[in-house]
């Protein structure tokens, strides 16, 4: 039986409590939100913290506030199922609601939080395995070893960013509020991540992600598509978030963010720039989708082959653009991605 390793449990009731626990315990402690990713990882001994700081009791971190006109603030402990069903998100920030509703299975969406999904550990076929499996094949550099088993000559870890919500939030220009002993700061999603499988968060270790801030909807439309083997489960092996601010049928601003193709969500900025000032015609869609596949450079360390994941990038960007433009879907049905 896979059991959790022993730890001390420190339940926080306020953000100030949690900040103090983190400052007191330093690297010995980890934060736990919904636990849906951390506990499996602890059972496989990817993490063995001496103490866990529980965020579940912090009421101020739950819920969605604001509206489309002024912008929306999402508490980090809001569970994913509440976002998937939220009327304001569905109407004005559709990519975020879709991404939240495509995370894992119904039970895990009711346990897992948006803050946890944004900070979710990077994944790799050589890492997300039991201790005995990893020991048998030789430990990788992300835990207990010193080589990367997917790219043995590489000095860095290539584990994959596996958040569904991060690309969607990034595409809509969202920011995160981080609170630490020195006070609080608000940063863009584009500066929250690093392209490194081990050190993938630019947040300081003593900072706690408390809120996600979405700007006013202001004509932005968005969509998120996800590739995975099992439609009712699984982390993304490709996520495509597209957002565009429309003025009539002309695109005024756009962002395209790819998930699960690198250790960080990756912005396809040349593709997005090619949309600006254009009507979303079939010709524009083809050109933008081709450009968006450029920054998609998956490695052979998740489900499906990496050439296939790169190829699907183009297909999904085109489908997301058609969705935003209100054009009829073409090709395979969306059921395969749902």
């Amino acid at each position, binding site marked *: *039986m896979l*059991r*959790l390793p022993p730890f001390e449990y420190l*339940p926080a009731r306020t953000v100030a409590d949690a900040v103090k626990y983190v400052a007191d315990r330093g690297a010995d402690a980890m934060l736990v939100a919904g636990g849906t990713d951390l506990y499996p990882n602890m059972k496989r001994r990817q993490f063995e913290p001496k103490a866990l700081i529980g965020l579940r009791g912090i009421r101020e971190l739950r819920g969605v506030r604001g509206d489309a006109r002024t912008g929306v603030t999402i508490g980090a402990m809001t569970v994913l199922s509440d976002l998937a069903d939220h009327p304001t998100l569905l109407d004005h920030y559709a990519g975020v609601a879709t991404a939240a509703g495509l995370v894992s299975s*119904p*039970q895990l969406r009711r*346990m897992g939080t948006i803050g946890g999904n944004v900070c979710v550990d990077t994944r790799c076929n050589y890492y997300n395995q039991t201790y005995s499996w990893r020991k048998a094949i030789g430990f990788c550099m992300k835990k207990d070893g010193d080589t990367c088993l997917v790219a043995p000559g590489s000095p860095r870890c290539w584990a994959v960013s596996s958040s569904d919500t991060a690309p969607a939030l990034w595409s809509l220009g969202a920011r995160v509020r981080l609170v630490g002993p020195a006070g609080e700061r608000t940063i863009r999603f584009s500066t929250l991540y690093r392209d490194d499988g081990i050190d993938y968060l630019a947040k300081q270790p003593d900072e706690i992600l408390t809120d996600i801030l979405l700007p006013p909807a202001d004509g932005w439309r968005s969509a998120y598509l996800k590739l995975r083997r099992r439609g009712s*489960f699984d982390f993304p092996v490709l996520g495509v978030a597209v957002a565009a601010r429309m003025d009539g049928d002309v695109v005024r601003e756009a962002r395209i963010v790819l998930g699960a193709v690198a250790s960080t969500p990756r912005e396809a900025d040349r593709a997005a720039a090619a949309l600006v000032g254009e009507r979303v015609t079939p010709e524009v869609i083809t050109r933008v989708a081709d450009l968006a596949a450029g920054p998609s450079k998956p490695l052979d360390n998740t489900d499906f082959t990496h050439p296939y994941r790169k190829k699907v990038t183009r297909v999904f960007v085109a489908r997301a653009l058609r969705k935003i433009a209100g054009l009829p879907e073409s090709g395979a049905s969306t059921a395969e991605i749902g």
Partner: protein
Amino acid sequence: MKTRLSLCVNGETHDVLVPVHKTLLEVLREDLDLTGTKHGCELGECGTCTVLVDGVPVLSCLALPAELEGTEIVTVEGMARGGELHPLQQAFAELGAAQCGYCTPGVLLTAQALLAETPVPTREQIREALAGNLCRCTGYTKILDAVELAALRTSAAGAAGGRS
């Protein structure tokens, strides 16, 4: 280090002295002898350990009892009333919706939560609600049939003023 916890399971309060890192699944099975809750993957992937916490389906292999004091936990042992099976259990038995039976407790509780929110769900709503419960016998058709039958019976009984 052990901690003293008070857990409300199936309407009864249990005081337990357990290591804080024991999951709800382990405490239910090993400390409270409620072995109706099954352990499958133990990593949150299969749904067989599903219990209800305040009416919401939760994977007990990923839940810490220390976070669940003050909540109401329901396991499959809490579904029947005395000798009378829950309508879902009755429908599962009649239609042969349990093959090996290992996923059944988790499926029953997930379905109970669905019917509490949506008394007469569509087939698609049932499929969506049960999407996190794997049946290793792949006997999904009869499971869906049984949930539909139980929903029809309870809504008809409710309309007639009977037990719902």
